[in-house]
Structure formats: structure tokens, C-alpha cells
């Protein structure tokens, strides 16, 4: 767990550095972020990608930290057991997503909340929904509009990792950010 947090923190630092750099120039071709992570979101190309109006670099889709071009690592928020508060590790990343939404009013995303397998299934649906709502609230504070964000909870039904140990559980307690919904 601590190992993972350290990794996430390192990643945030790396990507904050990256987004002020050359990624800006890749916005217009719609492949933003591909160079940083190679991970393509299913919603790529939708929303505000074609708009050239936003001049603030942090608000554009080119960031690997936020927006549809965000790397895989920056499209997942992890949680503690039976908790749904968003850890401060995710501030920079969610700020970037929030600003992207705020600058691209036609952009849409969906927050998919999940829980680990322990305990009862419908209660875990509740936990997943609470987690998605918590991430949604952070994005709204960053200037996103409520109609830009949909939430869904899959509870423990769609694990990212199959397994019954602490590591698998920590990877399954998550909210996935999916653009283009």
C-alpha cells in the first residue's frame, strides 16, 4: 500500500513536469497523451478536442495528467478500505481533469466506482457510488459542470484484478475516469 502511494506520488511529480512541456504541441492532432503513456481512452477525440480557443495550457486536452489524453495512471483514483474520501495524492490530477472539463464545456466523462470483494454486494455498490460522488465533487470544485459528469457504481462486480489479498483489494477499490460518456 505505502509502496503504491509512493509510486503514485512519484508519478504525479513526473507528470506535472511533463504537462508544462512539449505535450501542448500535440493537442491539435487528437493524440494528446499518447507519448506520455500510450494509453488511449475510449472517448478520445470527443468533447473539446477540436476547439482551439482555450489558451491556458493546463486547460487543454494535451495533458497526461488530466483530460481525455491522461495516462492510464491518471485516470484512476484509489481508496482505503470502507472509505470514500479522496486522498490528497490525487489533488493535482483531479485539478487537471476539472480544468479540462471547465475549459471544454462539451466534454463529458463518466466516473465508474468500484469496491473490493469483501462484505455484502449491494453495500459495495453503495461504496462504489460514494467514491464516484466524492471524485465528482472534487471535479465540480475545479469548475466542471454537473451535467458533464455521470457516475455509475459497479460495486465488487468488475474487479480490475482477480485475487483475494491486500494488493488485489487495494487495486480494486477505485474510481475510473472514462471520457466520452
Amino acid at each position: 500500500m505505502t509502496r503504491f502511494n509512493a509510486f503514485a506520488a512519484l508519478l504525479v511529480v513526473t507528470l506535472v513536469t511533463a504537462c508544462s512541456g512539449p505535450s501542448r504541441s500535440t493537442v491539435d492532432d487528437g493524440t494528446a497523451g499518447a507519448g506520455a503513456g500510450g494509453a488511449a481512452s475510449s472517448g478520445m477525440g470527443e468533447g473539446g478536442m477540436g476547439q482551439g480557443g482555450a489558451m491556458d495550457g493546463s486547460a487543454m486536452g494535451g495533458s497526461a495528467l488530466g483530460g481525455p489524453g491522461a495516462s492510464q495512471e491518471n485516470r484512476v483514483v484509489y481508496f482505503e478500505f470502507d472509505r470514500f474520501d479522496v486522498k490528497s495524492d490525487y489533488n493535482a490530477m483531479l485539478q487537471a481533469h476539472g480544468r479540462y472539463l471547465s475549459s471544454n464545456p462539451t466534454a463529458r466523462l463518466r466516473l465508474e466506482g468500484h469496491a473490493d470483494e469483501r462484505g455484502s454486494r449491494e453495500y459495495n455498490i453503495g461504496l462504489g457510488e460514494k467514491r464516484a460522488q466524492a471524485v465528482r465533487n472534487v471535479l465540480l470544485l475545479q469548475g466542471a459542470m454537473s451535467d458533464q459528469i455521470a457516475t455509475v457504481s459497479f460495486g465488487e462486480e468488475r474487479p480490475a484484478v482477480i485475487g483475494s489479498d491486500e494488493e488485489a483489494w487495494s487495486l480494486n477499490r477505485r474510481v475510473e475516469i472514462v471520457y466520452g460518456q
Partner: protein
Amino acid sequence: MSRNSLLLATLLALFASPLRAELQITITEGVDKAVPIAVVPFGLQGMGTPPPLDAAAIVAADLARSGRFAPLDRKDMLQRPTTGAEVDFSDWRIQGSEVLIIGRVVQAGGDQYEIQFQVFDVLRGEQLLGYRQPATTQNFRRSAHRVADLIYEKLTGVRGVFSTRIAYVTVNRTPQRTNFRLIVADADGENPRVMVESPEPIMSPAWSPDGRKLAYVSFEARRSEIYVQELRSGARKRVSARPGVNGAPAWSPDGQRLAVSLSRQDGNLDIYTLDLNSQMLTRLTSGSSIDTEPAWSLDGRQIYFTSDATGGPQVYRVPAEGGSPQRVTFEGNYNARPRVAPDGKQLAVVHNDRGNYRIAVVDLARSSTQVLSDGRLDESPSFAPNGETLIYATRDGARGVLATVSANGRIKQRISALEGDVREPAWSPFPVN
């Protein structure tokens, strides 16, 4: 739209298709105190098509599976009487059988049969029960289970559940796809039928009080929606697809309403009742807590539910017409998903027992908790309609399997499918005639 119609067509095509994969049931604890009995192969009477199944074998297997009876092996029987006149009790006494069951299947022409059977107290040499159970080729297995139900009730004073059914969800994962199925099978795992199949999750099956419908949650639209499906016709209706979570359906005792958990616009999960005729919603809880997993009291006046209002999940109850919730469980830091016992005196819950998720029963009068299962990740308890047994989901290694435990904790069984995970068992009510 067209994609939905296609999906519906697929679902309907699948409906009622028989499955090869049956559940395998093994008694893991509790057979040593079973009463020795003998179920003699039933004779055949009349001309016509022989019966499709061995009725006596089904009856013997049912009684053995209850954990309360130990049938004598057929090959050890010294005689095989099929009428009362042929019975010599001294032979059965020597073999230690305390109860003797004999019978005849009468071929009544076409696909019609009659299962005639007699139950004897071997020690006293007396008949306890004699009965004729009509049957057809189609319902022969069900009719044999009815015979076992009647014998069980005569011998124990408790109505048998051999002719009831179990609904459950299976999941098969391949690298290419995940496949969820809602299945209904006989209580002995035979006759499994696929009700719905989907690449997206299916959850929370709940039987209507008349046993003719199931409510469940399906994510086939990539979000949770509640459906009600008729077993016989396979026809189904979407009854709740509101924004946010649509979950945890539970039928009112009169079958007119569902208690559900909805998050709607504000994102808070609260308990509502949904009138199935008028679609009218009544909100029963509010606030920022997770309120879910409703279960009706037997008289329909109260609804038990899970809430994390005080931090971890605990069971509360609220009047079904509205009022203030009261906490019900106090032992331990995790008590969730209540199910009311058929006598109304206990709740089955998922209980955190020193880090393990286990099935426990909470005595409502004394507020005491008794842990019944011994797994690490046990969940989804469901009472048999006679209250004697609970079925629940557990693990066998990494695989999801089902298990049963008697309400006194003594008799345990493991039920696994031939492949994939099995989860969320729901025991049907008694059949309505």
C-alpha cells in the same frame, strides 16, 4: 434501440434453455447423527411408458441431503417389497433401519402416472403415512420431490423444501469475455435453467412471494437497472432505471411493492418503496449514509436495511409507511444484508468475525449474534422457506461456490458448479398450488 431489441431477442432465446452444468452437492458435516432409513426401489404397475426417472432414488437422495436421514444402500437390502403385504419388519430391524419407505409407480396411460407410497415405523411395525401423488412425464422429478417433502414432514414435523428452487448468479471469465447468468434450479441443483445471460453484471435476485417472478439488478445498459421477470414465460419488465444506483430489490409480502435502494440525483443511497402497479415511490430514509439491502418483516410493516450511519454498516429498521429508523444490530463492526427468518424471530446477516466475513443469525428479541459459517468471504445468506437451513455464497480456493448450513449450525453442505463462480443464492418460497 435496435441493439436492445437484439439483446432482448438473445435473452429470450436463451430463456428456459436447459444447461448441462449442474451443481454438485456434498455434505461436509453432520451426517453422523442421521436416522437410518430404507427407501426400497418403487415397483411398476400397469402398461404403458415406463416412468422417466427413478422416483425412489430421488426421494432417498433428498432425505440424505437433509443431513437428518441415512438411507440404506440398495445392494444391502435383504428384500425389496413394493406392497405392504410383502413387508417383513424383522429383516429391516436386523439391518437397523428405523423407517421403511416402499412404493409403486402406476402407469395411468399417456404421460400420466401416480406415485403411491407408504412409510412404516419399523420398530413398531406400523404404517405412518400412505399417499398417492399424481405425476406426468414433464413434472416427474418435481412430483418425486413432493413425495420426499411429505415424508420429511411426517417424520420431522417440519415441511420439506425438496420441491422448492434456488436462483443464483454464475460468472464465467475467459480472456475474451465475462459472462453473467441468472439461473434457477431445483433445490437439489438439478434442472438448471438460464433466465438471463449478459456480458455485464447481474445481481441481487429476489423471489416474488408467489414464487412466479424474480426481481434482479442488471447492468446490461452499463448502469444498474431493476427488472422483474416471470419464470414461466420469461417475459420481463424494467421497473426502475432512475439516475444513479437502482439496487437491492425486495418484494413486499403481498407482492405489490418492491423495497429498493436508489441514489437518484443527489447520489445518496436511500431506501424507497416502489409500487409496481402505480410506479409510485415512497422515500423511507434520507441523509448522506449508504442505506441499502432492504428486507421486509413478515407482516410487511417494517423494513430492515443496512446503513453506515454510524460508520461501519449495521442493520436498522424503519416502518414501511415511513418513520424514524432504529438500530437493530450492535455486536461487531460489520453487520449487513439482513434477511428475515420465516418465523420472523431472527435475521441472517453478513457479519465481520475477527476479520472474516461470515454468516450469522441475530436473535431479534435478545439481540444476540450466533456465527454459523466458517469461511473468510461468506455472503448473501438466504433462508429455506421452512427456516431450517440457510444457503449462502462462499469460496473454495479462489472459486465462488454455494454452501448450506442448518440454522443450528450443525449440518453443512458445499454446492459447486462444474465451472466458473457461483454466487448470490436466493431460496424460493414454498410452491403455490
